């Protein structure tokens, strides 16, 4: 079997076509998981009795189960959960009409929110208490303090970790192919089967992943330097 350069190049272009949708999916999951992670961190910071311990159990469950398992679990249960919830407001919903992309988004957002909440909690701790007191002394409300003092500084601290999780999400999306959502890996698999050139296809996929992640790392490092002014 010969390694064919022209097939590789052809596959590269084929894979590049799905990069935008893969990125979009990753961004959606990142944003949702950050939002949920933020809520989790806030709830735990406030130490709300029952909810806090429920969250701890959920976190330990999500941390202790592989993403593949969670994905399949979501794939087989989520449509029925959605059907049930929607039926509560009196709408009929066929569970088979739930697009697997929704499942991917929901499952990974929840699963990553656990890690994001840890990141967010740590970064919020890093903002020195004196500045929070200063804001309070000037009459900032809880949310004003959060928005103007804590979040901007915590974000800088959290940025490397958030970036890292973004790369992990991009890579984890390769599992989405298992429930028929085509990302970079899925496309490579399809192209490999189509040309009967698996090696070229996966080399192309690896190159695309690598280039993508390097580029994003570079971008975020530049951005971080700008944010770090004053630290």
């Amino acid at each position, binding site marked *: 079997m010969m390694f064919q350069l022209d097939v590789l190049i052809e596959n590269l272009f084929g894979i590049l076509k799905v990069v935008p949708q893969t990125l979009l999916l990753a961004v959606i999951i990142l944003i949702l998981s950050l939002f949920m992670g933020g809520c989790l961190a806030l709830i735990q910071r406030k130490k709300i009795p029952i909810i806090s311990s429920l969250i701890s159990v959920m976190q330990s469950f999500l941390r202790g189960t592989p993403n593949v398992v969670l994905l399949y679990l979501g794939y087989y249960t989520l449509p029925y959960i959605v059907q049930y919830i929607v039926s509560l407001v009196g709408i009929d919903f066929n569970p088979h009409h739930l697009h697997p992309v929704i499942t991917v988004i929901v499952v990974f957002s929840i699963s990553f929110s656990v890690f994001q909440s840890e990141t967010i909690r740590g970064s919020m701790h890093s903002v020195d208490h004196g*500045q929070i007191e*200063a804001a*309070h002394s000037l*009459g900032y409300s809880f949310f*004003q303090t959060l928005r103007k003092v804590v979040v*901007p500084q915590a974000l800088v601290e959290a940025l490397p970790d958030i970036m890292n999780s973004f790369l992990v999400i991009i890579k984890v999306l390769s599992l989405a192919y298992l429930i028929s959502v085509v990302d970079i890996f899925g496309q490579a698999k399809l192209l490999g089967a189509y040309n009967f050139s698996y090696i070229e296809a996966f080399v192309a996929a690896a190159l695309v992943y690598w280039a993508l992640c390097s580029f994003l790392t570079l971008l975020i490092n530049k951005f971080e330097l700008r944010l770090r002014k004053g*630290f």
Partner: protein
Amino acid sequence: MLSLKNLEISFNNEQVLKGINLTVNKGDVVTLIGPSGTGKTTLLRCINYLEKPDNGEILLGDIHLDYTSIRKKDILKIRRKTAMVFQQYNLFKHRTVIENVMEAQIVVQKKSKEAAYKKSMDELEKVGLLDKIDAYPSQLSGGQQQRVSIARALAVEPEVILFDEPTSALDPELVGEVLKVIENVAKSGMTIVLVTHEMSFAQNISTKVVFMDKGNIVEEGTPTEIFYQSSNDRTREFLNQFYTEKNSI
């Protein structure tokens, strides 16, 4: 205009303030002195509710509150009538000097950017930092940072400014510039409550000196009364000890 009645607070079952009564009139410069760990700073922090008193009442301008039944809204009200200058400056690290002074005006007082900018420039001129407006706190000396934090406090036009050992964290050669600024603030008629270990400064600037020991106010009076005419043993002991230590260095 500011008065505290029977203020009590405990930390871990240890009573730190044992029923403080204090009155501050408009334009007063009230200095709290006394040995370390007697609750001077705690008292100051109770005024703007950074510490939560267990008992007592506060009267501030037209606000009258009982600490046992205080609501969130009340806390904000008090804080919006006061400002504090901290020992560790506590400037917002991610904001430039001018932004530090502007932000509360915009966020809390809902002023326009232009108005906040103008006010901030006025205050920064008073503390002599017009040449540093675009610097970040980390690029300034401690003395400069403390002057910014004074400008930040002045910019919200509080009815009273609380100074919490404003020069204790500074290198000796930087203390003077900050004291000078505080003196100017006092001269401008601002009402001030100050915790300090700078005795000669307290003597010069104060309209009233309050000597505290072990969670109580032992004695209060004019600087002359406290520093030269006190008949209270504990006050004299503290001041003697203080001056002996200073002379022995």
